[in-house]
């Protein structure tokens, strides 16, 4: 049976299924819980310089089986209070990727140093949250700022730096290229897609923030297309995320070019047990498709692909 261990660049994970940022990432117990349930690694909530309550509720809207809209507003305990949570997960050997958000290169660099000191195995720069003024996608839609922020973080730390890209751009692959130029070690794609819902009776947006981000099955085709194009645009590994809920979805992302994947919304549909279930199903699926492991499948749907 195919073994599941993968590497994102030089960084090993026991399997390619990582917990996506913002899901189960607030407490150390939850990070540990996702790993215990079978995740190959976990990404923290995006952490900023100061505690942030996020937007008022409603912060989430269910859209049937197609997914969710959310506008959490980057709630997080801040870089001073958060290390205790990471420490708890690290104490149990969980490979934790620390997600960060900030306003500019200097803030990102400062946060990166603090986050690296917690013992995370990599950093993920959230340049892609679609609903936070002056943060996330608002900085991440400009290739020059992506390059600049990545460069500043790259200079400030030794651990791998992943840059998380927004799909809300004419060509997300150009943002990925800018991150690569800035020295990123991997690209994570995608964050949520800008969306909204309106309540007809109350005549107002459902989310308190108005606009939010779409996640779940609805965006799987969008994430796949981004990973596909990014794989063709850069030579660093890609971590795929968006709408994954089955072993077959994972394989689609691997074939598009993802070296590993992240899973978020599907946790709400199935519970955290989905990590164990998918990790259990993946070896037989890879076998039946003729792959001796996840790595063999990476990018295999690109005609005349070059190993990369």
């Amino acid at each position, binding site marked *: 049976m195919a073994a599941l261990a993968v590497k994102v660049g030089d960084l090993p994970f026991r399997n390619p299924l990582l917990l996506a940022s913002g899901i189960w990432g607030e407490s150390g117990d939850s990070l540990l819980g996702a790993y215990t349930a079978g995740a190959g690694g976990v990404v923290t909530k995006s952490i900023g310089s100061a505690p942030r309550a996020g937007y008022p*509720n409603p912060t989430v809207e269910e859209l049937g089986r197609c997914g969710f809209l959310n506008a959490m507003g980057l709630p997080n*305990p801040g870089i001073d209070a958060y290390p205790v949570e990471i420490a708890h997960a690290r104490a149990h050997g969980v490979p934790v990727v620390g997600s960060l958000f900030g306003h500019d290169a200097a803030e990102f660099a400062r946060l990166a140093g603090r986050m690296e000191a917690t013992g995370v195995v990599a950093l993920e720069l959230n340049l892609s949250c679609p609903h936070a003024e002056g943060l996330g996608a608002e900085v991440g839609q400009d290739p020059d700022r992506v390059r600049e922020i990545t460069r500043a973080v790259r200079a400030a730390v030794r651990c791998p730096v992943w840059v998380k890209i927004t799909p809300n751009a004419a060509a997300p692959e150009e943002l990925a290229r800018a991150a690569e130029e800035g020295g990123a070690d991997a690209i994570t794609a995608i964050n949520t897609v800008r969306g909204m819902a309106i309540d007809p009776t109350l005549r107002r947006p459902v989310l308190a923030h108005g606009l939010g981000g779409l996640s779940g099955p609805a965006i799987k085709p969008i994430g796949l297309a981004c990973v596909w194009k990014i794989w063709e645009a850069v030579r660093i590994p890609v971590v795929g995320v968006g709408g994954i809920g089955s072993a077959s979805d994972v394989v689609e992302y691997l074939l598009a070019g993802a070296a590993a994947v992240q899973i978020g919304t599907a946790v709400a549909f199935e519970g955290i047990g989905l990590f164990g279930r998918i990790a259990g199903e993946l070896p037989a699926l890879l076998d039946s498709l003729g792959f001796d492991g996840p790595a063999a499948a990476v990018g295999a749907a690109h005609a005349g692909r070059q190993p990369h």
Partner: protein
Amino acid sequence: MRRIVAISERVQETPSTATLRFHDAPPARPGQFVMVWIPGEDELPMSLSYVGPSKGITVKRMGAASGRLTELAVGARLGLRGPYGNAFDPSPARILLVGGGSGTAVLAPAAEAARAAGGEVTAALGGTTAAEVLFADRLLAAGARVRIATDDGSRGHAGYVTDLAAELLAAEPFDAVWSCGPEVMMRKVLEAAAPRGVPVFCSVERQMKCALGLCDACALGPFHVCTDGPVFPAAALRPLEEFAGFQRDASGRRIFPRSPGERSRAG
């Protein structure tokens, strides 16, 4: 899916607490909660205090959002999603309820279900003062035995409802204890019941945002209150340093109470 309901009835239960009733179809069990959207204000988790076709929530004025909720008039519209979470298991048993303040809101429909199932219900209810004791008459009407404790001694036992609970547990055999109220209170109930081997089930509150097991706002040790709770057996809660230890604020920071019972909803 979200539904919009109009408030069909409003009852001022205590000076700080009001019940809002509405017609809402999805079935619910006692112990479950709904996410209540107060348009333009916030969305709050609220236990259902009535679970029949005409459902209800019973809200204590705490901050801006719960305050606004208690002020809404009949006809006002709310958004609802849920019901979410697990429930009390109404079996034909001898049940002791220990409710503090608005915590009694979720125990009342559970008590009614237990009585309907042939159970015997004894309720120990706490409040800051006589006027703030919730649902004593409703529980009496349901055929429960009711004991009361108030902080100021204006009704029943002067002091903590946990004193009453300990007394009852010492004096009589119970098959189960159901409790909802401040965590320091529930922790005391746990400790009182433990040596007697009586199983305790507590309804726990935490910050909630998604109510879907995604956002981690309601993390409680290895659990999520929204999907694993809100009703937890004592065995799950006792080992947790969080339980009556710390909460998390909206940012996820750990918030340690300055003194036990600090929270004004304490019974």
